[in-house]
């Protein structure tokens, strides 16, 4: 990896911020998260962000594919991947640069919900631990979702198809660990499935608990999809 990957990242970010759609995306995301949080917040009246960390993964599940759908599809449709792959950069520089470009954009979006913890701070004494843990968790979930969308967008030059594929594959990973499917099975299999699936890891983040197992899970989940992406783009055609 060289510093050249940073230029790919920069180009990817400028690609987001040069388009109006990005601002619509950010606005919509913030409005939804704030609406769903404050709708219940004033009813329950507890100074906790648990509610927000519980529901944001669901919103991301539908929104992150809009971020990732263009990452490769647009390059393929416009033929710009030919420019990229004939520049003196390695495939890893390109894969990591683009992935981190997408991740940075989503992380910025998530951090813009800072108005929620600030509001809590003004209202009373809050425990920062669960809030920091919850945010960290959100970023790791985002990373996993982005890696799924990133990988599937290598297969099509159509952004709509890339969106749907990302959402469907994301949903499959979500349901394989859901109690509704695993309750009928027992022992090791059930545990393995619930570890593999995204659901169980969502719920622990909602509680503000982000332990080592979740960290390993999300990191390896992302790594597997990045390796897959690298494999596909290295082969090209």
């Amino acid at each position: 990896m060289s510093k050249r990957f940073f230029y790919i990242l920069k180009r990817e970010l400028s690609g987001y911020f040069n388009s109006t759609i990005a601002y619509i995306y950010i606005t919509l995301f913030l409005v939804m998260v704030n609406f769903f949080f404050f709708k219940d917040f004033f009813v329950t009246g507890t100074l906790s962000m648990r509610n927000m960390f519980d529901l944001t993964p669901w919103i991301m599940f539908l929104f992150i594919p809009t971020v990732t759908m263009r990452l490769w599809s647009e390059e393929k449709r416009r033929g710009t991947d030919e420019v990229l792959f004939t520049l003196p950069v390695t495939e890893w520089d390109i894969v990591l640069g683009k992935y981190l470009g997408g991740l940075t954009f989503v992380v910025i979006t998530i951090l813009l919900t800072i108005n929620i913890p600030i509001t809590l701070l003004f209202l009373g004494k809050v425990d920062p631990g669960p809030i920091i843990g919850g945010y960290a968790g959100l970023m790791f979930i985002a990373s996993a979702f982005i890696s799924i969308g990133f990988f599937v967008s290598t297969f099509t030059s159509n952004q709509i198809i890339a969106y749907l594929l990302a959402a469907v594959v994301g949903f499959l990973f979500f349901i394989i660990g859901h109690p509704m499917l695993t309750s009928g099975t027992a022992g090791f299999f059930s545990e393995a499935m619930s570890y593999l699936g995204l659901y169980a890891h969502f719920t622990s983040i909602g509680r503000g608990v982000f332990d080592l197992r979740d960290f390993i899970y999300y990191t390896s989940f992302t790594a597997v999809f990045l390796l897959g992406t690298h494999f596909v783009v290295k082969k090209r055609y």
Partner: protein
Amino acid sequence: MISVQNVTKCFGQLTAVNNVSFEVKQGEIVGFLGPNGAGKTTTMRMITGYFQPDAGSIFVDGIDVSLNPLKSKALLGYLPENSPMYEDMTVKEFLSFIMDIREVEQRKQRLAYVIAAAGLESVFNRFIWELSKGFHQRVGIAQALISDPRFLVLDEPTAGLDPNQILEIRALIKELGKEKTIILSTHILQEAEALAEKILIIDNSKLIAQGSKEELKGKLLSSNSTKAVLRKDDDFSKKIGEMKGVSEVKTRSLDEYTEYMIFSKGDVSEEVFELAAKTGAVLKELTAESVSLEDIFVKLTSKGEKK
């Protein structure tokens, strides 16, 4: 020097490039000529490292493109077909991005040079999606030149330009060719004829001819052709093939007449006239034509054979 050695590339069942070998010497401009879909673009994509060859190897300045792609890519400037670019960037942003990645030193000078060379002063701060096709192509050329590469690979550099722009770009390529090694592809024969010192003709995935214009004319065909239209006559058609200096005769039937295309070394129209008189054949038309690159191209490529 660019050296392409026994390179083959397949896409599934389709063989796009079949055992192609050629060399481009330092400071040479080589024209890659062939009908659409012949394998020009695929060959160029392998030289520039976008595709990996299935067999054979490619060396740019002695560097194996497959083994050391970073080094070979750094030596090459490449204008892909249709010059794809990030439309959401301005010309300035896009060129800066390429300079970043290519680690161009003396950025200001290089930028000023390519802006002037490609004539981009008026669109420098415009978004690429706003540009006309001609400007779009010129930004692509600027992008290929910006790192001052020793080797240039230009896939249809004048596609989409108007006649004046074509002349400008051709003059630019000629100028660059004084110190750079250039491979350019085109399906416009005049372009290859005007620019290239050496011509490679590729058809149906195979390299079917290479050499200078003169060599191609000399080697592959005789330098002259004579068209004769006569009333059908067996004696004439037998003897014309045996005539001295004639390398090939093609006939085409036109009702009661027959059209002969006689390829020969030197002008044989007088001899043809005499032969017609001797055999008593009725000569309707006799035209001496010198062979153009176009004739060679039409004759060599599959479309011509079908005619």
